[in-house]
């Protein structure tokens, strides 16, 4: 481990030295430098204008309802009150369910694709996973309605309810449309992101480390859990953060399967509505205060995704420092 540490520090030092040299040396092609700076500034400006305009639209609602927008328990389009607490809870809950399913499955698939699947099939398997990423989200929504709902109501929900009875987290009416189903559909949608990125980061784990582990007599699972995954954890955290970002913001597929009923879920079988699905569903007919309240939802969604990204960055840094 010590050698790795020094190697990485040296590499990063060289990188920053090179960057500094480029910054200082390019005196001859000034126009090019300005072009690059201009484009960078342009994108910065786009982000600023974007945030400002969302804030501007949301401002009347924020001024009128204040913190009630975040803490209120009832969301009533058209007339208000506009309390987004149920939407926030459903957004976080669906994302957690999606991660709970997609992270273990995704990591296992990545390991399998790299180490266990016969060499000839690896490319094919990777292509299949990437194909999942190319399916438009509305197709996932339709598939959820046509195939997953009958399966939910006939098989999964009765089975889960038989485990816990009417108690949390599984209880109540078994309608198919639910927070749970939204989480399941999301997990399939974020799976390719998690598999593709974690496969890339796992593939650069030095072969020496793996061989070292094996030569010490570790089993396959010990090598995976104690050598491969820890040394790739920075990248894996990034993969999870990207997946979470997609799950938080996914709109159409969720709107189709969650049941569009803004309520604090009494169980995972309960219907719900997320921030993104509510914006998409209600925007078309929104007038007056509803439009502004929907912009406030957009703002909340932006803050949450930004927080997830920042959190992932921090964890990544910590993970790097810990190596």
């Amino acid at each position, binding site marked *: 481990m010590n050698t790795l540490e020094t190697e990485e520090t040296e590499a990063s030092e060289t990188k920053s030295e090179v960057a500094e040299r480029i910054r200082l040396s390019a005196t001859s092609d000034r126009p090019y430098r300005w072009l690059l700076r201009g484009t960078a500034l342009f994108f910065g400006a786009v982000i600023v204008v974007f945030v400002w305009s969302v804030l501007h639209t949301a401002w009347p609602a924020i001024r009128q309802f204040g913190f009630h927008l975040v803490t209120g328990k009832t969301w009533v*389009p058209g007339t208000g009150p506009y309390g987004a607490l149920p939407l926030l809870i459903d957004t976080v809950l669906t994302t957690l369910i999606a991660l709970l399913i997609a992270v273990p499955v995704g990591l296992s698939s990545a390991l399998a694709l790299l180490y266990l699947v016969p060499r000839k099939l690896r490319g094919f398997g990777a292509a299949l996973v990437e194909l999942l990423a190319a399916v438009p989200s509305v197709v996932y929504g339709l598939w959820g309605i046509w195939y997953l*709902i009958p399966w939910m109501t006939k098989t999964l929900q009765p089975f889960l309810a038989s485990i816990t009875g009417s108690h949390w987290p599984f209880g109540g*009416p078994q*309608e198919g*449309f639910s927070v749970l189903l939204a989480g399941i559909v999301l997990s399939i949608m974020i799976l390719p992101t998690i598999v593709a990125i974690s496969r890339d980061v796992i593939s650069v784990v030095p072969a020496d480390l793996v061989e070292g582990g094996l030569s010490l007599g570790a089993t396959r699972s010990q090598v995976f859990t104690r050598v491969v995954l820890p040394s790739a954890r920075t990248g894996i955290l990034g993969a999870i953060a990207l997946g979470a970002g997609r799950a938080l913001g996914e709109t159409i597929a969720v709107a189709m399967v969650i049941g569009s*009923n803004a309520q604090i879920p009494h169980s995972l079988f309960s219907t719900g*509505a997320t921030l993104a699905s509510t914006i998409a569903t209600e925007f078309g007919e929104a007038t007056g205060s509803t439009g502004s309240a929907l912009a406030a939802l957009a703002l909340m969604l932006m803050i949450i995704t930004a927080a997830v990204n920042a959190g992932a960055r921090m964890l990544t840094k910590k993970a790097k420092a810990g190596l």
Partner: protein
Amino acid sequence: MKMNLRGKLGVALATLGLLSTFAVSPAGASATLTGDLTFASADGAASLNPAMGGSSFDEPFFNSAIPVFMSEAAKVSGSNAPSAISLYSPTGSTAGKKGVVAGTYAVGASDVPMGTVVNGTNLDSSILTGTSPATTLTNYVQVPVVLGGVGMMYNLPSLNARFKKDPVVLNSTVLAGIYDGAITKWNDPAICHLNPKIVKLTKNKKGRIIRRTCEMPNLSVVPVYRADGSGTSFIFMNYLNATQGANFKTSAGAEVYPSTTFNSGEVPSDGLGGQKNAGVAADVEQTAGAIGYVEYSYILLQHTLPAALIVNAAGKDVPVNPTTVAADANSFSATPPAETSGGVVSNYSIVNGTGAGDYPIAGYSWAIVREDWNGLGTVGGVTASLNSEKLVAKFLDWCSQPGAQGGQTVAQQQGYVPLPAYVSALAEHQISLMTYNGVSLGLS
């Protein structure tokens, strides 16, 4: 379109009903337009493409009517006929109103007439704010384009085969109870009481009936509603308002987002929201015990599931079909939509007609157009010239016409009910109010 015998009979009866009320016309209806399709080369209609959009209830109508209008016009006017009109955008009723106010639509369609006032509040107060001509209600004409019924589609798998013959009967009290969360089971006494036919008979050895037990399933009722703002919701809520009064007093906007009204502002916790008519129909199809309100043509399309009979104001159990919806519309022929001096039509409701054959949940959909295009610059992507205003007026006039080549024939093929004669007359009168720079368009 496939139509069963009953449907065909219904259409024939509806046409009869239409003829019988031909004599009635609203006060002030002067012009009699004829769906004139002649375009001269000076009209410059061939390349014009005025944008239209709004109500999703109207989508099947407009998207069939626009191509038929162009091909019928081509038969009369050859290469001078309009040939470039794009299809209609089903963006929703409120979006239709907003679009025509903003000038992005030449024709905005809505199931709720613009300027409708509910319990003292103007539903369009946030669209019609300010004093500019664009936000002044009297600067618009509103043309009824289609008539439709709203059916209560339900899914009770154990008894679906039987319900083809004996559909479930519901009334407004039960519907209000279902959407309010007060009625949660299909075998609720109130539902059993309305369905004496759906019973299991217990007989003794002599074959005499000793007991009748309600055979409605012990299944949770899942109320399905429109999660997006919707004119179909408006018609349904209008019906509950008219029949249940105090229980369903709603505030502005609540009609379009009905979830505000259910259970005092909260949807029953097992309620399901669907997007657009198709989403509600899909939710009902996928959920045992679900009931939802959809436009009649969606019940025709998804004929796998039945629609409930509704007990009307006269106490009769009535199915939703073109005959019963036409009967309901004709019950209101004595009180045609009132037009104010500026030609404004709003607050017109035809729910809960009193005739024995009336299906009580029905409503019109309206095309909203600026009355005078002079000085508007651009309207719906075309220059606001006399020619483009004339084209739109002629299109809407054609839409309101019955007969072999008229737009109402297209409406009928798409599962709507043809406009009653007195409403066609209203449509024509509204179109005749259109002017360019204060001068009548001079349509024939």
